[in-house]
Structure formats: structure tokens, C-alpha cells
């Protein structure tokens, strides 16, 4: 994977703080088209905050400073309108809470339809055709469009979110803990799906997880977070083979101990 000269996303000195304390400090990272960035860390380490800062959706009581540049847009200083133009079509997210990520009162067809109509300026028929097509890419039948969110499983709803991002042709996909709520078998399927999407659709991905095993499979580069600090970052292979920071070493060690069974299931040799 050859990095292109101008990065798709560059974060410089991102610091997120509440009135009382600093929650994320001085994170800098660049991401090129087609790459996958893994963000690893225990819960409360600031992973989700980084994702929300990317989308400009931090809670009102938190302040972010530094720079986030996505293509040509300064995400932290952009007006609401500018940001809205980038969100969805430029950058989109797979929410951690799949079960509650869709409005429970509307069928998925209605929600797909209106989102695609609004974001892509399509007619109703075209929007629904596109929705069906992208649902097919994540192996969901078109009948899903007639169901309401409570009738589907969390895994299916997550796939719906992926399908929506595909339909919107998002250039960057942020997946916030997509495997956390799933059992081992479904986790495996999700990881495989992301891998396939990267290969076939050239998807640029930010993959956030506390599960090192999952990240290892996908990520080109890695960002290890602990208590709001970036403790180690760089090429994924290098870090896995020779972790420098004590915390990363600990993570890698425990992962090796824990994921024997998991790897056997994957049946893949990894770098």
C-alpha cells in the first residue's frame, strides 16, 4: 500500500479537555487513502472521544483544540454547514451501540431512503435501489428495508450502518468498537467483512477497539492510547513484533495468551 502525498486525514496536537481535566492530550496522526488505522486502548482511554471529535460531535461541555484536517476541511473550526457536507458522504461512523443507532419508529427502508435522498439528492426509487444494492454487499436481503430496528439483531443493524456508509460512498469509515458487543463467531465475520471491503472497495478505515487481536488483523498503523495519552504509535507490524512501551508490551503479551483459540478459528497466519 503506497501512501499518496496528501493525507486523507491529518490530526495534529488534538487535545480534548473538560472544565476539570484533560481527557485526551496531544494526539497527532495522519491517515492516507486506503489505509487502516487501529486505535487501541482500555475503556476510558479516550478512543471514543477521538472518534467523536473527528465528527465534530463532542458533548458541549468538552473542548477540543489542535487541528483535524479531513481532505480540505478543518473539522474543528468548520461551520455547521461545512461539517454537514463532509459528514456522511466524506466520513461516516459505525456506532458502537448498533441496537439503538436507528430511530425505532421508522422502518429501515424509510431511514435509508430519506438519508440517501437528502445526502445524495436522489429520487425515492433510486435511493431505495441503491440501498438494496449496498445491503447486498454486506449480505443482507432487501427485505431488511421493510423491518423496524427492533426486529433485527445487533449484528444486522451494524451491517446496515456499514451498508449505509457504502451507499453514501464515504471516503473514510470510523468503526467505533464494532466487535465489542458480539460473540466470537460474529466478531470473526465482522472482521472478515471489513477485510473484504478494504480489498474490494479500497475503504479507508479507522478501527477502534480494546481488542488487540481484532486490530492486528486489519490495521496498517497503530495508535495505542492509555489514560488520554498516546503511548505508542507507528507501523502495526513493527509494534506487534517489538513493542517499546511497557503498556504495549503488556497488551501484546496478554493478547497472545488470550487469543490462541481465536487465531485457530481464524485459521490465518498473520504478519
Amino acid at each position: 500500500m503506497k501512501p499518496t502525498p496528501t493525507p486523507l486525514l491529518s490530526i495534529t496536537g488534538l487535545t480534548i479537555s473538560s472544565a476539570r481535566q484533560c481527557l485526551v492530550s496531544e494526539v497527532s496522526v495522519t491517515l492516507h487513502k486506503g489505509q487502516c488505522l487501529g486505535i487501541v486502548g482500555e475503556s476510558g482511554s479516550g478512543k471514543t472521544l477521538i472518534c467523536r471529535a473527528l465528527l465534530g460531535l463532542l458533548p458541549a461541555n468538552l473542548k477540543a483544540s489542535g487541528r483535524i484536517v479531513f481532505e480540505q476541511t478543518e473539522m474543528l473550526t468548520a461551520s455547521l454547514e461545512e461539517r454537514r457536507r463532509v459528514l456522511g458522504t466524506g466520513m461516516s461512523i459505525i456506532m458502537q451501540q448498533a441496537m439503538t443507532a436507528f430511530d425505532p419508529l421508522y422502518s429501515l427502508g424509510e431511514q435509508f431512503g430519506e438519508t440517501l435522498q437528502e445526502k445524495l439528492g436522489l429520487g425515492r426509487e433510486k435511493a431505495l435501489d441503491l440501498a438494496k444494492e449496498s445491503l447486498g454487499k454486506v449480505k443482507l436481503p432487501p427485505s431488511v428495508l421493510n423491518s423496524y430496528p427492533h426486529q433485527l439483531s445487533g449484528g444486522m443493524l451494524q451491517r446496515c450502518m456499514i451498508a449505509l456508509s457504502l451507499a453514501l460512498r464515504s471516503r473514510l469509515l470510523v468503526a467505533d468498537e464494532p466487535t465489542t458487543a458480539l460473540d466470537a463467531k460474529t466478531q470473526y465475520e465482522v472482521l472478515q467483512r471489513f477485510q473484504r471491503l478494504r480489498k474490494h472497495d479500497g475503504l479507508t478505515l479507522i478501527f477502534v477497539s480494546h481488542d488487540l487481536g481484532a486490530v492486528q488483523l486489519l490495521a496498517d498503523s497503530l495508535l495505542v492510547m492509555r489514560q488520554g495519552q498516546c503511548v505508542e504509535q507507528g507501523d502495526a507490524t513493527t509494534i506487534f513484533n517489538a513493542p517499546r512501551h511497557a503498556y504495549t508490551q503488556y497488551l501484546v503479551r496478554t493478547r497472545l495468551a488470550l487469543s490462541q483459540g481465536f487465531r485457530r478459528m481464524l485459521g490465518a497466519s498473520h504478519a
Partner: protein
Amino acid sequence: MRFWQSLQKDKAGMLCLCFLLAVILLGLLAPLIAPHDPVSIDVRHKFSGFSAAHLLGTDHLGRDILSRLIFGIRTSLGFSLLTMSATVAIGIVLGMLAGFLHGKVEALIMRFCDVMMSFPSEVMILAIVGMLGPGLPNVVLACVIAKWPWYTRMIRTVTRQYADMNYIRFARVAGYSIPYIIRKHLLPCAAGEIIVLASLDTGSVLLMISALSFLGLGVQPPTPEWGMMLGEAKNIMILYPEQMLPPGIAILLVVAAFNFLGDSLRDALDPWHHPAKGQTL
């Protein structure tokens, strides 16, 4: 107690509490504080304006309005508090019974509550006053009858919630008697929710009692009561509109204080009740 501490931090809530306590004290000490006899008629000095002798003036029979307001605390607020105490007491007894004794007793009590609650409380109160006839005791009784099912249901819910907790089960297994468990463990747990609801409801009971007295269905003259004072002021509205102000403002202030206190108590009890400030759209 954490509950009390967080209430103390809430300045407006404490202000309301102090105001209400002051009003209650004023009502208790009414004979000492009131400048005049609230029922003595002095027709020569009727409708006198604000003056040193009569701070808030006199009404259509020459009675001192300030004194009537102060004595009115005893009827308006006093009977509201009495009503609420009776309601809460019935609610606690029946609610705890239903919560602790599963099976037929519970089903019977809760079914009865459901039927009672299927009537709007206004209709229930009118029906009972209609059956027993106008008068303050009947109004109080009607309010109690109309309100007890709500408390019974709430207290049962709380009881059920706690009765299944391990430490209560442990207490039962350890052989403590049910009354002891209720007194020692359940009442303190339920107290917060009861106080919140009761403080909000005292305001509405005061409104109901004064509304019925205003219509002539509640307190009978010459006993001073705020709603009835308003009813009397209504008849002379065209010539002396200012007569409507003192009782109206008195009701407004006390009810507002109860409502505000109820909100503050709820916040103190459950800091997560109010959703955190989110982002703007």
C-alpha cells in the same frame, strides 16, 4: 445523609423550605401574631385601604385581611398537610402490605387501586363531596380517597424493588420480623420518593381545597380560608379589585414553594434525573 447534604447545596430549594417552615410557624403562632381578630366584624371600617392599623386593608365586613390571611394558613395549609399525612400513611400501610405479601392480598389491593385510578381525581372528589355534602371535613376525606391509590402503587413498586435485594432477603432469613425490616430498611429507602411526590402533591391539594372553598363546597364562613376569601372578593371585583390580590398571591407563593421544593428534592434524590447538557443541534 447524602440526600440532605445535596439539598443544602441547592440555594433555591433551601429558600423554599425555609419559606414554608416560616409560613407554618406563622400559622401555628397565628393568635399571637395576627394584629386583629380574623372574624370580628366592623362594618364601619369596611373596605378600608392599606393603613397602619390594617396593613392589607379590610374586607366587605370590615375584617382585617392580614389577620384573615394568617389564620387562613391554619385552614388552607394546615388541612392540606393533614390530607397529605393521611394519604401517605394509608399509602405506606397498604403499599408495604401489597409489596411484601405476594398473592391474593396484593392482587386485591392493586386491582382496587386500578379501579380507583381509572377515575380522574377531580371527578372522584366531586362525587364524594356530592355524596357527603359540602364542608371542609368532607373535602379532606374526598382528597384522601382520591389520592391514596397513587401512593399505594408507588410504595408497592418501591417495596418490590427493595424486597428482592439481598440484604433484605438476608434480614428475613436471619429471622427479623417484617415490621422491623420495614421500619429499619424499607422506610428509609422509600422515604425519598415519598417526600418528593408528597411535596409536589401538597401544592395540588392546597389548590383543590381552596378551589372547592372558592366555589362554596369546602370551608364554610366565617372560618378564614384563602380560597373562600377569593370567593368573597369575587363578588365585589368591580369596585374593589385589589381585594383579590392578597389571598391569590398567598396561594400562589405557597404552591410555588411546594412545587419548587419538590423539584429540588427530586434533584437531590436523583442527580441523574435531569439529562446532562447535550450538544446543540
